[in-house]
């Protein structure tokens, strides 16, 4: 399982965290990653100046927009992130 945590703190919320979440929810089935990815929301990942922040596995992505979601999922599909047991 790769854990994807989308920050929903104040800054990320304002910058459209929910749209990013919706995009993940839409694309994860399209990439058939339902069994490989666990999508979560997180309270403040501590990078408020660079919203929206998303944590994939142990890596942080900042200033993410819904358009970037595709790229993240493609990387996940290729196995670029360490899976947790």
């Amino acid at each position: 399982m790769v854990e994807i945590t989308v920050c929903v703190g104040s800054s990320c919320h304002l910058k459209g965290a929910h749209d990013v979440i919706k995009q993940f929810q839409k694309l994860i089935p399209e990439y058939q990653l339902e069994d490989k990815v666990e999508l979560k929301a997180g309270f403040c990942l501590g990078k408020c100046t660079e919203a929206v922040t998303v944590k994939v596995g142990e890596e942080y992505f900042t200033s993410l927009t819904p358009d970037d979601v595709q790229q993240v999922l493609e990387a996940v599909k290729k196995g670029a992130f360490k899976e947790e047991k």
Partner: protein
Amino acid sequence: MKIFTEAVCKSLTKKGEELCGDNVEIVRPHDSVIVVMADGLGSGVKANILSTLTTRIASTMIKNRASIEEVVKTLIQTLPVCRVRKLAYSTFTILKVENNGNAQLFEFDNPDVIFIRDGRIKDIPKQTIKIEERLIRVARLKLRPGDKLYMLSDGVVHAGVGGVLNLGWQWENVASYLEKWEKKDRHVSEIVNQLVKVCNYMYNNKPGDDTTVVGIQIKEPEYLTLFTGPPEDKNKDKEVVKRLMESKGKRVVCGGTAANIVAREMGKEIKTNFDLINPQVPPTGEIEGIDLVTEGVLTLSKCVEILRKFQSSDIASINFFSTIRDKGDGASRLLDLLLNHSTHLHFLVGRAVNPAHQNPNFPRDLTIKLKVVKELINLLKQTGKKVDVEFY
């Protein structure tokens, strides 16, 4: 049994006047609540000065355990004499409720206080005493949770005089109107808002007299502690969380970082909810042992916005408090806890500044989180809550 008294008030100012000639003062010494309403002679500035002096003098003296005789004598000697009417005059109603439910009521020339118990109007047996040629109605009451009392200025009883109603609304009709709206879980400020709104209708939006309603509601005390914002000094994190967890009653955390601090100190996980019920309010979260976890400044600003809307009586619904219960977004859930499920609020406010909130691209409201918190506290006090604040 210990009780808590919530008191709220609302006034209409006579048309054409800048100042209201009625005045209300609510003071809270540690063991009681004292509510004074006064209606000054005339209207405008003159009446405002008379009523303000009256409420201030009476509340301060009663707080310091002066007798009603002393209060009346002091008032007579202090109030300035009106040059036109050669009179120094202001009506008053004074209610003192102790935390054990014992209450004393003094009325001078104001309409009788309306007392509602178990959904019915109840008579208050009164004695009339004479002090300095003035007749004061005096009563002793034993109040219990659920009781509601209303003080009215004559502007309420006379609402509509000479316009829609020849004799005005009249006390009996006001009382039965209040009885009609009485419901066990209806908050007194909803009824006060409604009553003032109706008075304004009867005056056709041009009040012919200053109109004031004070609503008093007896409740069982309920406690809530709210922690928001990280402390300025990180070394205080532990202390704040300890204060929060040792508090009695409900516990609320507002703010992502604040929630992270609580979870870390307690060794618990935060579960964040996905669903966005209202796009303007960020999702809520859950930490074991905490009744509600929300995002910080946006949720709090939303609370302020909703409460402000409620206070401007024209659009407020009489079901405001109960509808908020069903909404489910973070701000509504927080307001439901604050308004419907607590009387004593304790705020633990961290003063650390989030650098992201100083970003000029962000709404200005964010840079002034402390201001939002202070405004929320102010609005909560206006709905009759007792609020203490501690800064970290």
